[in-house]
């Protein structure tokens, strides 16, 4: 460990230089952790908001005007596919809400209460009242209820496509955080839309599915398309429906990687230049040590150890700064939760040390090749 001792001593005798480079690495790693975590959390939140409460692959009749027959064979295929984590057959009925002189179009989705809760996390999003349980129960979005001054227990008059008027009972108000749902969709039991649409017990508007890995939706659809049971069935892929969002997320991710990469390059150049200066400053000492018998390898290790110590201290400090900054940021009015990914943080730290070590290669090789006679003759 002589090389390590010499490295530490060299660093201690140039405290200003050592502190500056440690600060440089710390800032780089802090930015890396902060920006990376922020962007990842934002993307995760956007994805969760977009597809967490939505179908990933939706099955419909190939003929849009006809209902989908939910056969036992389809039920078996979907239930046995381990890539599918949730199956929600539903019926969608377009009605006109009416109150006094006001009216508004609204889609009423009828599905099993447990399924509605599973896909929309409705228990979590319920702001007042309860979930639907009986035929005639309906829950509506917070903004819709506020606009028409509705509260749980109030009657909800709707006009069916045939012109028939139906009275439902508002039992709960939800807020899923998406205006498309909050403003225009109500949820009820499966029977009300079935009767209104004149569907058989096994007929549905569509079957919504959620996958364990939403990004494998294309592969899932490809594997289903060839099956006989899905003849006459069309599949709607969330990735196709949200192509613009995905492009946005990818661009955001690329920008984040670019920022992180340039920060790391700046850090690497900083360490490399400092170590190069240090190597020049310590040439005489290294030459003397070599004259005393220090081998090339051990001489080269001196600057690798310097880099490791600088990289380790800088990374540790950067970790504290980065996490601290995220905690501070989380106290502000953020609209999404910041989730620290231990693997990303560990990766950032590993990259910090690795960059420091890579930066030391040139000065280390120079030191390794140094001939002691150059120093001895130079001093004479």
């Amino acid at each position, binding site marked *: 460990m002589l090389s390590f001792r010499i490295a530490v001593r060299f660093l201690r005798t140039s405290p200003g230089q050592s502190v500056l480079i440690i600060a440089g690495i710390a800032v780089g790693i802090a930015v890396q952790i902060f920006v990376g975590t922020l962007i990842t959390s934002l993307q995760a939140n956007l994805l969760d908001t977009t597809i967490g409460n939505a179908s990933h692959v939706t099955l419909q009749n190939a003929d849009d005007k006809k209902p989908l027959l939910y056969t036992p064979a389809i039920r078996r295929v979907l239930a046995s596919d381990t890539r599918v984590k949730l199956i929600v057959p539903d019926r969608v009925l377009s009605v006109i809400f009416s109150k006094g002189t006001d009216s508004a179009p609204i889609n009423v989705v009828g599905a099993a209460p447990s399924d509605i809760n599973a896909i929309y996390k409705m228990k979590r999003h319920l702001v007042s009242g309860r979930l639907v349980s009986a035929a005639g129960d309906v829950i509506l979005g917070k903004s819709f209820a506020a606009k028409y001054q509705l509260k749980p227990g109030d009657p909800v008059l709707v006009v069916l496509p045939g012109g028939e008027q139906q009275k439902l009972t508002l039992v709960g108000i939800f807020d899923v955080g998406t205006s498309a749902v909050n403003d225009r969709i109500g949820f009820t039991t499966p029977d009300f839309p079935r009767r209104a649409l004149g569907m058989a017990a096994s007929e549905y508007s569509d079957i919504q599915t959620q996958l364990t890995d939403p990004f494998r939706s294309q592969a899932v659809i490809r594997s289903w398309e060839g099956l006989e049971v899905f003849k006459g069935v069309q599949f709607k892929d969330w990735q196709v429906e949200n192509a613009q969002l995905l492009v946005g997320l990818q661009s955001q991710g690329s920008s984040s990687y670019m920022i992180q990469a340039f920060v790391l390059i700046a850090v690497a150049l900083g360490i490399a230049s400092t170590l190069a200066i240090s190597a020049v400053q310590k040439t005489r000492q290294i030459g003397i040590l070599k*004259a005393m018998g220090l081998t090339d390898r051990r001489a080269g290790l001196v600057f690798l150890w310097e880099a490791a110590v600088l990289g380790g201290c800088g990374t540790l400090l950067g970790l504290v700064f980065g996490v601290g900054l995220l905690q501070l940021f989380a106290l502000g009015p953020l609209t999404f939760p910041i989730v620290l990914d231990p693997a990303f943080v560990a990766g950032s730290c590993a990259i910090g040390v690795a960059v420091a070590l890579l930066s030391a290669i040139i000065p280390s090789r120079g030191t390794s090749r140094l001939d002691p006679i150059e120093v001895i003759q130079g001093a004479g």
Partner: protein
Amino acid sequence: MPDDVLVLAEKLSKVYGDVVPTPALTDVSFSLGCNEFASIIGRSGSGKSTLLNLIGLLDTPTSGRLLLNDRDTAGLDRDGRAKLRNTFVGFVFQFHHLLPEFSVIENVCMPAIIRGERQSAELLDRARDTLDTLALTDVADKNANEISGGQKQRVAIARALMNRPQLVLADEPTGNLDTENTDLVYELFRKVNREWGTGFLIVTHDRAIAQQTDRIIELSDGRLVQDVADPGADLPAESRGA
């Protein structure tokens, strides 16, 4: 020629430069026995330091053969040369070349630590003994930058002796010292030579200093022109030194 040969040089030559070859040393042959106390003299540019650097394995000869302790140095790689430098030779240069980042005692321990010894109490005791021999007991724990020039050069001598080398190579070791310190350094060299049996090869341009050694090897224009044992009895009349 002594029975136990420490250094055997056979037609050693050194030429610097490829485009314009400049010979620094030409066909120098001599041997140095154990416990010898010898000096190399010559004018500036005569090849004294080049010869010392070749013997100390800091440089490689262009041609010729160099044996240290009966071992041919031609086949040694860089690590092998470094190891032999560490164990067989102790260097004392005109400039002390102490490491300013370390204390006096750490500087003295350095050759032993490079050899692989741990910084144990035993090692520190040995270093203190060496420092005692050189009258440096009081400065052992000071930083190498906090002592006088004469003390620094004596610390460099202590460092050269730390691994108890068979041969000490000194290149103008008192070139930067006053008369008092110069006398002190040569007294110490003599003492170590007598008490520890360490061989000395001292490069100097000062004939008066050379006369204090047991043998004078004189170089001129890179060639060995005179090799005088017991120089006190047979001195060249003309003083060629600066």
